[in-house]
């Protein structure tokens, strides 16, 4: 799969990362060659192999349904660029 500039623009928009024209071009080139390298895997026959979502062969760890966290409002608001006593404050977002 070759990654063209439009694809890079689309991805950067989704990721909210702004790129100038030069960077867009160089990323397109880099990513294309990375993909080319990865695509060698397509040569393998995987017809009878189930897709793998984790390489760890362990069960998922779980927890009991108990409340043992929260009530740390000051701490979690502490690092917010904008806040008041109760809320995170962000620029107006409305659809």
């Amino acid at each position, binding site marked *: 799969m070759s990654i063209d500039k439009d694809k890079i623009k689309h991805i950067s928009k989704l990721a909210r990362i702004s790129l100038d024209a030069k960077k867009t071009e160089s990323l397109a080139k880099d990513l294309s060659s990375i993909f080319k390298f990865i695509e060698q895997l397509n040569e393998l026959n995987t017809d009878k192999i189930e897709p793998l979502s984790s390489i760890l062969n362990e069960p998922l760890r779980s927890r009991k349904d*108990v409340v043992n966290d929260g009530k740390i*409002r000051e701490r979690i608001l502490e690092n917010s660029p904008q806040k008041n006593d109760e809320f*995170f404050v962000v620029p107006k977002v409305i659809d």
Partner: protein
Amino acid sequence: MIEKSEKYLINGAKDKWEVVIGLEVHAQVTSNSKLFSGSSTTFGAEPNTQVSLVDCAFPGMLPVINEYCVQQAVKTGLGLNAKINAYSVFDRKNYFYADLPQGYQISQYKNPIVGEGEITLDLPNGSKKVGIERLHLEQDAGKSIHDIDLSNTFVDLNRSGVALMEIVSKPDLRSPDEVSAYIKKLRSIMKYLGTCDGNMQEGSLRADVNVSVRKEGDTKLGTRCEIKNVNSIKFMQMAIIYESKRQVELLESGKSIDQETRLFDTKKNETRSMRSKEDAHDYRYFPDPDLLPLNLDKKLIEKIRKDLPELPDEKKERFIKEHSLTPYEANVLVSEKEISNYFEEVIKSSDKKLAKNWIMGDLFASLNEKNISILESPIKAKKMAELIDSISSGVISGRTAKEVFEIMKETGEDPKQIIENKGLQQKSDPKELEKIIDKILSDNKDKAEQYKSGKDKLFGFFVGQVMKESGGKANPQLVNEILKKKLK
């Protein structure tokens, strides 16, 4: 699919159109703590007090799954007669929004925990089966508050990370009424199971509504629009009515439908395109590397299946058989767990037929009048049973019972107390009644003669006089018997 109900069609300028609806219901899992953290899920807490470092996505925090939420999803799946997938995977659904601190929602995409199932709707003209496509677990987002400050949005993350079940139906619904029946049934099943409280005002149950139209008789599905996040049955119905008409008008004027996400404006009663969200449709799902696949133990599934409570459909069958109810009555009485509990509590110690009539009649009317649920009823099941018992044992007449009921519904008082305090007991002493009757007969000798010579209709007059004389307290049955004897 049984299609007994009258077809809901939209009459366009040219054709008749069928409406095809599918629902994605988001149901909040009933649990103490969140899906991947130990913060509380209690509704209505002070803003941002139920937020852990995991819920606000601080760097390095790792999600650990709440085993109870998993069991709740399995339980719900079993209640929907659905296939439980022993293997499921959590994926990241990527998008940016101020109330989504992770920048992605942990959800399940390719491998949901529950697969296909089915719900039976009870419609006025019969029943209809609606397919369930899947049920998966996911995190809720936080809450954005736009109306406190003019230029800023406030974010409360208390809801962030609370477990939701997204329950996706097949496009089997055909009218606003079916949608209402579907939501009510789904809600009822989850409340019986104790897996979701179904409280729509608190946002525990919301739905995305997929609507498309096609000409009557067509089998191919039309292009659909998705109406996001509708939080009441009434609004769902209004949105569907508006949206289907909009689509018919577009199609009949030769235009086509854009597959898009729309928003229902409850004030203007219209749906609007949410173009700003179009880009966000590229969610770039991939398995969450912080979480391993979820493998369910078969034994756990079987244990949950074994422990399932009696669900509305089974209860309905049992009520029809055991308590000789009609299907309609049974539907009403099982529609909510609290109602069926109340009914069963009342009939433990009183007559079934009277109980059914009193609950579905006077009690429901008084609850509607006050707009309260049966749980909030001032008349508790035990007292209702006592009232009914005093009718069947002849202490008071049905008419007096209504009087007692009127007091009970205001004060919640004990019926026996009311009857005693107000001296409402029926006069069932034959000697006492005979005295009254003798007096009436001697006061109305002419009428008694007329009756004896064949004017049968006068019987009612005598009964009326006796009741009047006794202040409405004479036992009507006894009065009838004695009068008949005396007038021979």
